[in-house]
């Protein structure tokens, strides 16, 4: 599975004909600065939203808390490119917000007043942060719940702030993990930055590739973005290297929630309501209003097929990713060796590349395999061979697997880390082979992580656009590709129905996943 990633990196080693000198002199500094600003902004916003909401729902008891626990995950079902379209329509001059302001104050034209420009760095940070923070929220919330109450009690005895001295430091690895996913998605995002015309590395990749006909230089820029993410992660690891996160307690409960007073209740509600409104309620409301106004195309038969395609692909990829992840996790645990660990890492890093670039890696790799097989089959055996990789739906599945492997592998690794490290060894001592170990020991113990990871992948595949677009066979549409042909021309009205279906199809799994994680947190905390 690392092959497509390696083939992108291999393309990056080809000569780009002196383009770099030109790029360095002109646009590259701008690309880098913008990318860093976007990463810092989206990362920062996701941290603030994710950690504050997670703390509030685990620490305080207030009316609506149980509802917010899952509502806060919902923005995850909204694709970032979609929310960018929606907010532009909603907030620009001709949109309802400015229209109402003009009516209220009697302004005539745009030059009469100031209004923040949504197609800007700030706008991009807000819309991306609003749909990406749930990664941090989910991770942080589980971590807060798993923190033993004894530690909080010690802090309380010493009259120290619980959040600052215990909650935050102990949740740090989990928060960093959520943040890593946010950053990878930020670096690889194309839809939003293209729509907002922000000159980031991803936009640069496409300018160089399509404008200068240089795929090698484009692959080089893509690898640069990839290095950014890796650098961030290494920094975080180094900064916590000498601390250990050890839990010796066996019987623990999580901290009892505080009943919030009126002022606190108001604060809690505000903290939770803000991200849900911005990330879910407003976008869904705007889309619904298009449907109600009747702008949407009423081709419901076609939409049904397309929905079915999306769901089938997403289910298949989720199953495949989790199966592959299980194999990888067990193999690494079974026979830990450096090359294997490295390989598992590479195979799970596809998430940091823009989808289209990764898709080209996939297609190049598949083409090479096809040619190899062709030579073997028609050359050696004298049979004709049609090439079964290129042009089939298998390629879409494979590409999605490569891209979302990070998520499946991450979910299972975290599950593994909660198991005593000698579980696998015990199986080996008892003479279980690798597959037997997998089915009889590991899987039964990792059920919840399995479910959570699979659902996460499912929702991500539902939202996936660029790879499906490029790799799909004839006449095959998913909701995202169907939506794209309209959205590309800023025909948001026609795109409303498929857009709502993507969100709707993502909502169910998101709620389910949330339940799984919640049970995980509470089940663990309730262990006697």
């Amino acid at each position, binding site marked *: 599975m690392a092959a497509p990633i390696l083939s992108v990196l291999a393309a990056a080693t080809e000569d780009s004909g002196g383009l770099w000198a030109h790029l360095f002199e002109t646009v590259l500094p701008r690309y880098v600065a913008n990318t860093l600003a976007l990463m810092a902004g989206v990362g920062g916003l996701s941290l603030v939203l994710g950690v504050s909401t997670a703390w509030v729902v685990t620490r305080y008891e207030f009316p609506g808390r149980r509802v917010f626990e899952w509502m806060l995950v919902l923005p995850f079902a909204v694709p970032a490119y979609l929310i960018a379209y929606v907010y532009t329509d909603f907030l620009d001059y001709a949109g309802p917000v400015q229209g109402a302001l003009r009516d209220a104050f009697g302004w005539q034209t745009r030059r009469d007043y100031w209004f923040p420009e949504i197609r800007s760095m700030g706008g991009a940070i807000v819309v991306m942060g609003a749909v990406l923070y749930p990664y941090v929220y989910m991770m942080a919330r589980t971590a807060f719940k798993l923190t033993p109450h004894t530690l909080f009690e010690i802090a309380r005895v010493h009259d120290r702030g619980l959040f600052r001295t215990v909650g935050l430091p102990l949740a740090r690895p989990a928060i960093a993990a959520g943040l890593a996913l946010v950053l990878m998605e930020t670096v690889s995002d194309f839809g939003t930055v293209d729509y907002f015309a922000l000159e980031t590395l991803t936009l640069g990749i496409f300018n160089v590739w399509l404008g200068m006909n240089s795929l090698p230089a484009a692959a080089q820029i893509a690898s640069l973005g990839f290095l950014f993410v890796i650098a961030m992660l*290494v920094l975080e690891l180094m900064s916590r290297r000498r601390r250990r996160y050890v839990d010796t307690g066996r019987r623990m409960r999580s901290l009892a929630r505080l009943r919030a007073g009126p002022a606190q209740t108001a604060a809690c509600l505000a903290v939770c309501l803000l991200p849900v409104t911005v990330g879910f309620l407003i976008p869904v409301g705007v889309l619904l209003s298009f449907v109600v106004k009747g702008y949407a195309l009423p081709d419901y038969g076609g939409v049904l097929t397309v929905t079915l395609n999306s769901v089938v692909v997403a289910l298949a990829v989720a199953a495949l990713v989790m199966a592959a992840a299980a194999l990888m996790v067990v193999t690494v645990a079974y026979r830990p060796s450096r090359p294997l660990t490295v390989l598992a890492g590479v195979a799970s890093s596809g998430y940091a590349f823009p989808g289209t670039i990764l898709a080209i890696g996939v297609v190049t790799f598949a083409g090479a395999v096809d040619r190899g097989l062709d030579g073997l089959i028609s050359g050696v055996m004298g049979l004709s061979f049609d090439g079964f990789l290129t042009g089939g739906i298998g390629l879409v599945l494979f590409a999605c697997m490569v891209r979302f492997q990070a998520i499946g592998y991450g979910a299972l690794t975290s599950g593994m880390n909660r198991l005593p490290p000698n579980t696998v060894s015990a199986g080996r001592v008892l003479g279980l082979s690798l597959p037997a170990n997998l089915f009889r020991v590991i899987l039964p113990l990792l059920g919840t992580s399995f479910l959570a990871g699979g659902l996460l992948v499912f929702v991500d595949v539902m939202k996936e656009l660029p790879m499906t677009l490029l790799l799909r066979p004839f006449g095959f549409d998913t909701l995202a590709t169907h939506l794209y042909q309209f959205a590309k021309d800023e025909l948001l009205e026609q795109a409303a129905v498929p857009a709502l279906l993507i969100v709707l199809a993502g909502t169910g799994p998101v709620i389910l996943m949330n339940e799984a994680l919640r049970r995980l947190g509470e089940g663990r905390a309730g262990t006697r």
Partner: protein
Amino acid sequence: MRGIAVAAPGERTARAGRGMLARVGAAMRLPARACALGALAGLAGLAWPAGDAQAADELNLYSHRQPFLIEPFLQAFTAETGIEVNVVYASKGLAQRLQAEGKNSPADVVLTVDIGRLAIYADKDLLAPVESAVLTEAVPAHLRDPDGRWFALSKRARVIAVSKDRVPAGAITTYEDLADPEWAGLVCSRPGSHVYNRAMMASMIAAHGEEGAEEWATGLVANLARRPQGNDRAQVKAIYEGLCDVALINSYYYGKLSSSDIEAQREWAASMTMIFPNQDDRGTHINISGGGVAKHSKNKETAVAFLEFLTKRDAQELYGAVNFEFPVNLAVEAAPAVRAWGTFKEDALPIVRIAELAPAAQRVIDRTGW
């Protein structure tokens, strides 16, 4: 000892991090091969026979044009010939896909919406030379490949949109006027690196040389009312909003907006006047949508017949009716709505020059920050 916090993907990313660093070492070879084998086995399991799905009375199309825009053409073709047409639409990367598929590719015909991409297919040797009297007669020589690998199918003009109320008639007549300091802070544009602007820039290079074109772009960028953003539709909207007075757009956007179902869009269009620039010298810059036959098509006759169909009267009229484009076939009149814009002089530069100058154009765009 157990980790308290769910280290979740933190552990994974930790591995990824270490992995990437260690990858620099040569320790990679063996596992890479092992993994390729594993992936191969996995893929074989997933594979779905698709290459042989094609029957003789079907045609497979790789399109850079949105499905809802080509659907009327396909329906007309099927009605006339009984041949079904299958489409894969993507805006980027289809050339790489075709290249990787090689001789097993199921594609018969490639359609693009600009000359730059057509030329890329030709450069990568992905198109078959076609000899067709119908095509060479219908498509003027400067709008097709000398070797017959691609043909223009419709034309669109890059025109200047100006505010009806705020820009007096005759104040702007050329592209060069856009760089005049008189319009400082009044010009809107989509990003320079979009294919339409890149082609525009290439035509400026053809007319004035790289230095002259760079000077022009510098002036244009200095006149911008806001950071380049949005598509051509959004530029018209910005004129309507009073954000700017002047913008570069493709002609068909005006047609689409003025006949939109949505009242607001008709208002945007009503706020602007369309100017065909440079009528007294080289003429207005035009771009094309076009197509070619895939090199490894197993259905070349049908593929050629399809391209021929697209250059004949019915389809040529359809380009105007569906998308407000101009016919390439001079024997065919434009659709009534397009004809209403009047006739204009086109830049007769061989369209292939636009593609050849595209990389130089992108460099100028990078240098001037358009």
